[in-house]
Every structure is written in C-alpha cells, then in structure tokens.
C-alpha cells in the first residue's frame, strides 16, 4: 500500500493537470481558437524570455506562502478559507510599517515582514480560538474574517494612511524587498528577494511538520483528536497554534506584495484571490511543502502566461481562468481519478 500510495500521490495531480489542459484545448477548439498556438503563447508568456521568467517567479512567490498557509492548517484537519483575509492584513501591515517607521534596513525590513506575519497570525488566532473553545466551525469564522479584513483595510487606506486617496505612498527603500540584482538579471522584471524568503519558509514548514514534536502533535490532532487527548496532547492548544502559524504564513504572502511587487497598497474593490488560490495550490500540492512549491509554480506560470494569450494567439484571458478552474475541478474530484487508477491496477494485477 505504501509504495502504491506514494505513486498515486504524485500521479493524481499530474493527471489532473493534464486533464485540465486537454479540457482547455477542447474548449479552445470549440470556440474556434487553435489550441497549439494558444498553448505556445501561454508558454511563451510564462517562460519565453528572462523577463517572463522573472515575472512568473514573482507571481509564484505569494502563492507558495498562501499555499503553505492552507496546507499547514489542513494538516490539523482545519480548513483555513481565511488565508485571503490574512494576506490582506499582512499586506496592509507590511506597507504601514514600511511607510511609517524610520530605521536602517537591517531593522526596518525584518520588522515589516514580522509585522505582516503577526497581523496574519492574529487573523488566524481568532477563528482558531473560537473553534478550540466554543466549537464554532473555522470555515464560517474565516469567511467573516475575510470581509472584515477587506473592508477595514480599505477604510484604513482611505482615512488613516492617506487623505481620501485610493493608493498609499510607496514604502521606504529600507523596507523594500526589491532587488536590483534579481531585477536586472531578468530584464528588469519585478522579481524580488521574496522568492528566497518563500523557499526558506517552505523548508522551515517542512521541518516543523516532519521533524518536530509540534508537527507530530498537530498532525495527530488532525488525524484523531480523541487519541491525541488520550496521549496527553492539548487539542485546543494545537488547533489554535495551527491556525496561528497558518495565519502568519498568509500574512507573509501579503508582505510579498506589499514589500516586493508593489511597494504600496491600494483600495481593493474585491479580494486579491492570492489566499483563495492558495486553497487550490495546497490541494494540488497534496498539502506537502514541496508539492505546494510546484503547484504554486504552475499557478504562477498559468497566470503569467495568460497575459500573452490575447496578444499572441487571440485567446481571451478568461479562457485561462477556465483552464485553471478545470484543473482545480479535476484535482478536487481526484477521488474519481484514484478510483480509476485502482481499477486499472487491479485489472493489471490479474
């Protein structure tokens, strides 16, 4: 079972992605576009030159962190739909600190990053606390927390950070993650140091999950809270902790945008979707850090490559959204694929 299990853990996401791509091709064909030119434009848009690669990685960066946020909570059997709100408060806090604090970079930048993580952590703590102490389902609370984050952030941008403007001023250089070196290497894309931080955090999260007593407890609570209590673990504490860490990761994803890509924050008419996409990234990555990195890269490239499709092949961007939606659909219904795989293997074994 174990080897089979591992194999299908890798096979299923790959098959899901392939099915999504095939379904996308069919839709392009039906709507009168050439799927080959369409997909080659997509590929060019994502990896065609150094600039495209730089932008793809930039897009991937927050997905890694928001994917990790959702994946980490999943390990404790918690569904953190609130990653979106955690991203937003993280973004806001990072920019706020970036604008208002005066300090040398060595203090300012870490402070801004830490602030974002703490803001996200608080946004995770509240649903965690309600779940652990009162049994309120985290999905409901995190959805509410998303709206609170969105509207209060807009309010703060308009009335606290600016005087009725829609965009804040830029953060100080001492809080910026942008990198002359990375940027020039990729033909002046917006690639920034955040990717290194994201990868580093992924390693740390892997370590926490696989190698620490904290991870041992969180997974145990996720699998079987009764046995965890029997074994002397504090179930409430672990639920709260899992949500706090998950929230901090969401906050960090926001910092990537606030301190790296944009250097400011604007009033949002709707959600950024970085957090929501994190759910799909986590699912596609089977809730493991390495899987999340790969899934985030896929999402980043699809989104980035999509820009090239209208100009390069005349395919509307909406179609790319449809393809991504299809991939998520196939991942979510992965149990159908698993079933088919089992049948196939069962027959082969005869």
């Amino acid at each position, binding site marked *: 079972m174990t080897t089979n299990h591992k194999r299908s853990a890798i096979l299923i996401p790959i098959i899901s992605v392939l099915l999504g791509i095939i379904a996308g091709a069919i839709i392009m064909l039906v709507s009168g576009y050439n799927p080959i030119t369409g997909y080659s434009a997509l590929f060019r848009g994502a990896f065609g030159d150094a600039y495209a690669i730089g932008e793809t990685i930039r897009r991937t960066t927050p997905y890694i962190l928001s994917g990790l946020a959702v994946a980490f909570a999943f390990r404790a059997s918690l569904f953190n739909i609130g990653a979106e709100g955690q991203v937003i408060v993280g973004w806001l806090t990072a920019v706020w600190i970036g604008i208002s604090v005066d300090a040398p970079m060595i203090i300012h930048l870490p402070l801004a990053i830490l602030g974002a993580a703490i803001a996200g952590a608080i946004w995770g703590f509240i649903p965690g606390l309600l779940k652990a102490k009162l049994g309120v389902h985290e999905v409901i609370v995190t959805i509410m927390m998303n709206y609170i984050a969105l509207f209060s952030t807009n309010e703060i941008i308009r009335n606290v950070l600016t005087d009725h403007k829609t965009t804040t001023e830029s953060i100080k250089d001492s809080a910026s993650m942008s990198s002359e070196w990375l940027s020039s290497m990729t033909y002046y894309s917006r690639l920034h140091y955040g990717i290194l931080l994201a990868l580093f955090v992924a390693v740390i999260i892997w370590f926490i999950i696989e190698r620490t007593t904290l991870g041992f407890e969180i997974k145990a609570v996720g699998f079987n809270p009764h046995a965890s209590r*029997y074994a002397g673990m504090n179930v409430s504490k672990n639920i709260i902790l899992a949500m706090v860490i998950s929230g901090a990761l969401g906050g960090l994803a926001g910092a990537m945008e606030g301190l790296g890509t944009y250097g400011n924050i604007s009033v949002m008419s709707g959600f950024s979707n970085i957090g929501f996409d994190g759910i799909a990234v986590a699912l596609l990555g089977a809730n493991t850090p390495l899987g999340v990195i790969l899934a985030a890269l896929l999402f980043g490239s699809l989104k980035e490559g999509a820009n090239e499709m209208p100009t390069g092949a005349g395919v509307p961007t909406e179609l790319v959204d449809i393809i991504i939606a299809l991939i998520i659909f196939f991942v979510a219904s992965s149990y159908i694929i698993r079933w088919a795989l089992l049948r196939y293997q069962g027959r082969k074994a005869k």
Partner: protein
Amino acid sequence: MEYVIEMLNITKEFPGIVANDNITLQLKKGEIHALLGENGAGKSTLMNVLFGLYQPEKGHIRIRGQEVEITNPNIANDLGIGMVHQHFMLVEPFTVTQNIILGKEPKTKTGRIDIKRAEKEIRELSDRYGLKVDPTAKIRDISVGMQQRVEILKTLYRGAEVLIFDEPTAVLTPQEINELMDIMRSLVKEGKSIILITHKLKEILQVADRCTIIRRGKGIGTVNVSETTESELASLMVGREVNFKVDKQPAKPKQTVLKINNLHVRDKRKVDMVKGLDLEVRAGEIVGIAGVDGNGQSELIEAITGLTRVQSGQILLNDQDITNKSPRKITESGLGHIPQDRHKFGLVLDYSVGENMVLQTYYKEPFSKRGILNLKEIYRYAKKMISAYDVRTPDAYTKARSLSGGNQQKAIIGREVDRSPDLLIAAQPTRGLDVGAIEFIHKKLVEERDKGRAVLLISFELDEILDVSDRIAVMFDGKVVADVKPEETNEQELGLLMAGSELQKAGEGK
C-alpha cells in the same frame, strides 16, 4: 458434495507480506464454518476477498459451482453474500428500518418510500430468525448487541444466503453471545450458510460444524468440530501447545497505589453513571472489575485517566490528588492505560506503527530534544518493541491502519506496559486477540504485578477476570457492590452479583 462457496487457492499479497498464501476454503450449504487463525493470519483479508473488497492475485471463487469474479461488494450482495462487519456501519439518528433499507428503498406507486411495507417485512424477517428487533427504534437508542442484529437483518433484507461474521462476539456481553449463537443456529436451520471468524474456541465448539485453520497466511486444514478439542484447535492454530491456565503465585500486595473515594461521574448525556464509588488498588495486585457493560465502567476509567470530568469525589494516585488533572499530568504521575476502544483512543491509525509506539513519550528524550524529533531513535525503539511484543507488521513504517486488529492491540499493550507505570489500567486488553496472544498478555500483566505495579483489569469475560485477578470488585449501577476473592467464588455467583442481587438481599434501595 454440495458447496455454496468455494474459494480455491487464493493468494493475496500486500507490500511486504503475503496475507493469504494459496488458501482454500469450501463452505457447505447449511453449515456454520469457523475460520480460525492467529492475529494477522489473514482471516479478515480472505473474507474481504470474498466480499469483493480486495482482488486476489491468484485463485478462483466458485459460487454454487459457478466460477465468479467479485470485483466489488455490490456484486457480492447480488450473489447472496452478506457481511456483518466488526465495526458497524449504521447511521445513528436513523431508525432501524431506515438503516436497513438504505440504498434499497421500497417505493409506493407514487414513488415515495414505502416505510410501512419495509417495517412489516423487517418485522417478519426479525420474527422468523428470532432477532427481536424493533424496526421503529432509533439506532442510537439500542444496545451494541441490537445494532449487530440490525446488521444481520440488513444482509438478510438484501437476500443474503451466505453470512460472514468477522469477530461478532468481541463486542458482546456473555448473555448477548448466547443469543447470537441461537440466532446463528436458526439461520442455518432456514438454509443459510455461515462463515464465523472468532478467537474464542469455546464458541467454535459450541456452534460450528467445521473449522478451517490458517497460520501465517497458509491454510493448515479443515477439521470436523465434533471430532476435535479445544487444545487441539489451539495447537493447530498457534503451532505449539497453549497453556490456558494463568501461572501465578499468590499476590503480595503492598502500599496503596490507587485510591478512589466517593466518586461521581456523568456521561456525555449528563446522566449519572458512577454514583459514589470507592475502590483501592495496591501495588503488587491485580484487581479485576466485573460487571455488565453500562454499569459505569467506561466512565470510571475515563475519570481516572482524565478523559472525563469528575463531578465529585477524589482520586489519589500514589497519594497525589489527580482528580480532574489533565491526561498528560496523570500519565506522568505514573499511569498506563490500555483503552477499551483502540480505534478511537488507542491509535492514530494514519500514523506509522513507530509513531504510535511513542504516542505517549514522543516529547521526551531520547525521542526528541528541544522539540525536535529523533526519528532514528524512534524507529529503533519501535523495532525493538515490535519484536518484544510480537507485533506482526511488515515494518515499523507501516501505517497502524493496515495492521490486523489483534496486532494493533499488541502494539498498544506494548507501548503502555513498556513505560512501567505504577498503575496499569487494562480495559478489555485481550479483546480480539488469539489464544496465543492472550496467554502472552496475561503473562505480561502478572509480570507487571510481580514487579510491584498495581493493575486494574476491566473485562466483560468472567473467565479472564477469574483467571487473572487477585481480587474482584463487582460493579453494579455505578458502585462497587462486592469485593470477592477469585478462589472463593465462581461464575454463577459473580453473575448474580453483577445483576445486583446482593444489593436486594441486603435490602438497600438506591
């Protein structure tokens, strides 16, 4: 010879293990056929093959002489094979009827579910086989024994001709076991055929016609039950002589380890279950708690172990007050606990055997240091434990879920005993274990006692209570109503005490 089912030369492999190695089992029409084998011998696997849950690598299945391929349980149902699982698959808030017809609802002409007709049919079925099930009762309101009968009815309702019972008596009280035996007899009288998996040799001798024995995945043979004895069956199955009597010297009790004063505990529905209980267990003795299920035993254990809140009263462990302390605190004060429900409390089924072995100690050295796990140490320890407690598993990295029921139990027992707790609570420690393993566990309990530990044994099996305990506390209606010595009593008397008769004699009302 007329066989309803023939499983011929079945081989089923799992990674690292051949669970069934060329096994043949032939079931005659109208017989009760026992399937006997050690824990992990491959009994459940063989039955899952028959029920279409697993596909065998080799071998054929014939039903009434016809070669068939059973690729899923629906096909098994259509072929008239029904399985009564050990873990019931019932919807708690639904009624008996609703559960039975689920997925096979009879419809009225207008397309609505015809509950009335279903109830009538189920009542008829129930009467015919003497099941005494009330079709309108809700599942959550009926006893475990009744729930099992609902499972039986479910298979009958679906037209089963062959019924598979996988360890049906493990969860039943002695009374319920006798009734189940009667039900089985009336089933075969009506022409059904039965495959019965059980570790209790007495039950085989009582009801079965023939018995097929498997050892480590291989078929050893089939014997006529009328021509065999308990000890022959045991040695065929284990491959050596088995000692049914527990060898032990008289106990030399020392200081008091556990002391409970006037304990009151409620269950989840806020009903008083333990009502002013006093109990004392001393170092170097095994105290057995005898009682009919539902007289507060579970609540008592959960209170001692910190899993349930105590309403009032006091629990002292080594003179320390542990009343309403956290489970971790209590464990660290010297308690080991083999829980009654191993799937709910005893194991994290999705963790490996190795991880489960350190479920109580992972946070201590050498298994971790400053919050960082030492996997090498964990698995080294796990390997040692696996061989010390004869847990049959391909390796320490295998998920606990894929172990056979008995081997899961051995893993838990190993984990709890190895910590050498001052007080060991063993709740139904041998449930689902084969006779060889039971012998081993009983020896371990006595060994712990001789090392000066206090052992509290809870069991519904009077044999076990009488054999292993040095002192028996009889529990009835939330209290200890009698304290007797095993050598001065017998099953008869215990049975009466457990039914509360002593109370009546003494004329004390509640």
